[in-house]
């Protein structure tokens, strides 16, 4: 079994987040609406170098990457 081919691409946390999203979208409609709220995140981040903030106030676009 190709044990964890995902390891070369991202961390365990992102792995669980993607799996969680897939599970949620497979739920029955009423349960899915409730569960979707648990997966919502609107965080944005900025990388800093040498005391200066980076220009990328990137939105957490990772959830969009399937």
């Amino acid at each position, binding site marked *: 079994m190709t044990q*964890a081919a995902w*390891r070369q691409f*991202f*961390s*365990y*946390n*992102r792995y*669980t*987040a993607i799996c*969680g999203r897939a599970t949620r979208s497979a739920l029955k409609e009423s349960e899915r609406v409730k569960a979707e*709220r*648990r*997966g*919502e*995140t*609107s*965080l*944005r*981040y*900025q*990388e*800093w170098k*040498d*005391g*200066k*903030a980076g220009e990328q*106030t990137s939105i*957490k676009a*990772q*959830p969009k990457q399937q």
Partner: protein
Amino acid sequence: MAMLPRAARPAVNAAVRPAIGNTIVAARAFSSTPSQGATLRELETRLKSVRNIEKITKSMKMIASTKLNKAQRAMASARAYGKANQEVFENSEAKSAEGGKALFVVISSDKGLCGGIHSSVVKRAKKELQAIGSAAGSADSTEGPAIFALGEKPKAQLSRTLPKNIAVSFNQIGKDIPTFADASAIADKIVSSGINFDKVNIIYNSYVSAMSFESAIMEVLSEQSLRDAPGFSTYEQEEDTTKDLAEFALANAIYATLVEGHAAEINARRNAMDNASSNAGDMITNLNIQYNRSRQQVITTQLIDIVTGAAALD
């Protein structure tokens, strides 16, 4: 209100021809204070603005009280997550190496008007960094411990005092109860940033009581400390699973602290707005008394004018 025109004339003069208006008034009054009509108008505007402020702070307090219930329930369940998280580490007696490299996560939010929440966390961070700094040269440089700042307010404060230590800053926090997805994304960013660390110190505000909060630190050990722990071999884990466990533990701890910090902030905002409303209420009482006194003075002066004028005609 028919009496107002006579009182308004000095005020109008004072506005149009300031110097002349003031001297005319000065000749009539016994002191050089501005005409009573003007102070009356001033007091009225002040009273109106303080009344508005009181309405605003009262409504903010109501909103915070309703949000607090939901936040407290979320905090109770998140605390259980945080505790369960520590089980493996405690049972295997993992200990952080002395002088190990620490990474700091400073948790607060974007919004203000919540009392000393943000400064409490930032002060704690500075204190911790100073403790490290005194033990090993200077801490505030790019060689020092890395800081992940969560929230606009701590980011602003930290960028003024410890700018070189900030690695990544996050915002859009504090709008709603944090989800595990948020915590997971933050933990992912920490791990993928490639920064070396032996433990993560999460600095957050813990909810002590309905009246107070306190800054606290939650320590999360790295995968290496877990491997080196004496009791760990009883768990018989594979290499990869240990790494996963350490990362998941980090996400769990961040989730628990995020939710508790959120509850503490809502509580602090409710208290702060409550204090502000009662202060505004006191100001309104005082201003009202002053306003009435001033109004009565104006009326008395006008009455005196009228009576002396009538007496002069006789």
